[in-house]
């Protein structure tokens, strides 16, 4: 067997390893129902902020605690506890992705991604000069 063959086999082995690792390592998108079935697994949940309910951020008590209510894409609402500061312009978010685990009656999120369409393509022409 030539060296090139050995290298080739090694190459394929590493590639398969990389694919397997990616598939097993990666968390998946889910809704609240699926996430609450497996409280020990990490999920990405996509949804919208419930603007009717109160969001609580009291930096004087805890600068790394922010709670709000989110409705997932299946229509289920849940309280979300984010262990970070309140994101800029949170109320304007159109879509939210929270990353974390479902613990008890709340979703404990380590991280949050927000899509504010306004930032990229929203905003309509209006009279701005007087």
């Amino acid at each position: 067997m030539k060296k090139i063959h050995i290298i080739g086999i090694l190459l394929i082995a590493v590639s398969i390893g990389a694919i397997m690792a990616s598939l097993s390592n990666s968390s998946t998108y889910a809704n609240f129902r699926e996430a609450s079935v497996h409280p020990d697994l990490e999920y990405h949940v996509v949804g919208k902020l419930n603007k009717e309910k109160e969001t609580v951020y009291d930096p004087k008590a805890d600068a790394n605690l922010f709670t709000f209510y989110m409705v997932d894409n299946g229509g289920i609402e849940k309280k979300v506890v984010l262990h970070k500061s309140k994101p800029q312009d949170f109320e304007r978010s159109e879509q939210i992705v929270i990353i974390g685990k479902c613990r008890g009656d709340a979703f404990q999120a380590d991280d949050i991604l927000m899509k504010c369409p306004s930032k990229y393509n929203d905003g309509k022409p209006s009279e701005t000069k007087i």
Partner: protein
Amino acid sequence: MDIHYIGERLIPGQLGNVCVILAFVAALFSAVTYLISANKFTKSEPDAVAWKMMARVSFRLHSLAVIGIVVTLFYMLQGHLFEYEYVWHHSNSAMRMRYILSCFWEGQEGSFLLWTFWHVVIGTILIKTSKEWEAPVMTTVSAVQVFLTSMLLGVYLFDYKIGSNPFTILLRQHPDFANIPLFQNPDYLAKLDGRGLNPLLQNYWMTIHPPTLFLGFALTLVPFAYGIAGLWTKRFQEWQKPALPWAFIGMAVLGTGILMGGAWAYEALSFGGFWAWDPVENSSLVPWLTLVGAAHVMLIHKHKGQSLFTTFFLTFTTFILVLYSTFLTRSGILGETSVHAFTDLGMSGQLLLYLFFFVILAVVLLIVNRKHFPKVAEEEAVWSREFWIFLGSLVLLIASFHIMFNTSMPVWNKLFKLKMAPPTDAIGFYNSWQIPFAILLTFLLATGQYFNYKNSDIRAVVKKVLISFILSLVLAVVIALLMGISKAFYVVLLWSSLFCICANANYWLFVLSGKVKKAGASIAHIGFGLVLLGALLSTSRKEFISHNNSDKDIEALKLSNGRNNILLQVGDTLQMGDYFVTYTGKHKLGANIYFDVEYYKKQPDGKLKYDFTLKPIVQINAQMGNVAEPDTRHFLQKDIYTHVTYADYETLDEKKQEGNEYGTSKSFTMAVGDTISSSNSLIVLEGFNTKVDKNKYHLGDSVLAVEAHFKLFDINKKIYIANPVYVINHNQVEPIEAEVPELGLKMNFWKITPETGKIDISLAEKNVNKPDFIVMEAIVFPCINILWMGCVIMVIGTGLAIWQRVKKLRIKD
């Protein structure tokens, strides 16, 4: 009914549109005529030259048209021609002119244009320098231009819209804004301002990063075009000679462009670092990795005539990965996985066509010519330079594969109906794979040059690198102990990058006896080692000094990956790392709010000594949302990064907060017995007194006056009294306020509603009662300057190496 709009400037748009069409048609014509010419050259037909001349003229015409497009678009942006959607979308009249470049390429159309423009520049150079390669090489270049300019066409072919044309889309005709009443007004332009540039892009790095990056992308086309030309004209070996310098130039430029992007992220974005393995970052890094592989394998081929197929494979892969990245970042498929992908313009089909055209072209040409790749009978020796370079290129290929496979997760989701999310801790996930690859690479880089081509005496090589090996090992142990780096992989990478630096420095100083001219490769490798060393030290020892230890919720502590935000009230001083940090206030300048965060150091005598002030910014942007921009203090050995994650914006519009001034007052409606609260007391309405002592208040007898009795209880239950008076003097309400200086409160009694027996009062508090505060993050990045220094050295080294090669090529000619 037709409206005759006033003041619309439609001529620039028409001019621009003519240029777009001309650019497209001329590129098409140029591609076809170059193709014919190249075919005639291979058959040595006499009119080949005439066709080539025609093709040249077409390309020149195309170039002129592209320049015309660029100039027109600039004119429109600079003149605030908001009647055009592109101008309205990406700029406004308040914006500073220095960001006009950023506006130009913020949108997809502008960035395609930038890319097209660089191809024009490169094509012009190729016409001058490529000699007998001109026709076949320029065929590919022109074909690429056909695809790129088609992205700007904005015409309908049946129901399919081809491209998006910044010159033909008028704002009032844009389908999203069709029914807006503003456009019923013929004079709408007088009242219209632009939407403005995304505040994140209003940064000097954004004026130089995109052109550099796109020049890098554009340069990958040249080796690709030469490779295609080599297969097509059956000059399987010769194409590499002219392509090689281009590959190295591309490597230097693209590498610089990527790192500039990192610098921008570090300076202006708030994720706290220069590299986040974001899909958009990844998709520019991956072609660079394969380009580095391609350029180095070309070196093997040049010296040994081996690895011919690999040179083709890596060269083609690089360009195709550039196209694939273009598809990923512009088709909208990345969706929520990336923060800075382009807006989807519905051009996915066109982008895929662009990608597959060149994939199929490359694959078909390779298959057709497969018999021409020589089977090398003898194997490379293990102890030869070519074998080690080859190994290095394979490591690069695998590293790119790993990054690309994961970045493409949204594509796999779409293709196979999966629900895979990107890794939660992207940085940790990618690092765990990429660090071993980096270790392998730096080790190969350290030793590679010590091997000769063909074969070497391994004992002699070991002897030569031994010193560097031992020195780097000692250094690594010392640094790891000093800085407290304990993770095994980090320590190994620390050693291997130091080994790479030492061994290449050694090679330059002793093997090449310090000659700068020949040392391009060694210097570039030293630079690469420094980049990795700087990245390793600054990220592995990155320290949040704004750590919040006051937390009692252990469960939450376990869950969260870091409680890095800390509350600072104005005037408070908190210890953060070696520093004592005070927030002294904020001020507004234009749209930006600057927060003054002062850093102090403790001296031996226990007193605090002022060190420096950082002014992180929050830009208030009603249209696109507020954007926070960190501020960083640079020292030689470390950076201190400060970022405001949350602040009280209610008081933003007020002038500088003077503690002794009263803030805006709040109104309350109360009945007797009601209680309201201020920030430091409870206030109870006890009752009224209608028989006011008018002399006390210097009131005339005809005046109606009612006194309200309030009892105020502070935190210590101490009682204060306040008696504001409601006065009606000639039908005018002229209340007399009551102040409680001890509590910093002022009360006014300004309305009585007899039907309900309730009264309205207003309450103002001194600003000291509710101090201004910020929530901030402070991070120390040690040794990050090593990274930036490494970048510069790498570019200088590559430049030297290219210069030497080009010089040699000239001499041979």
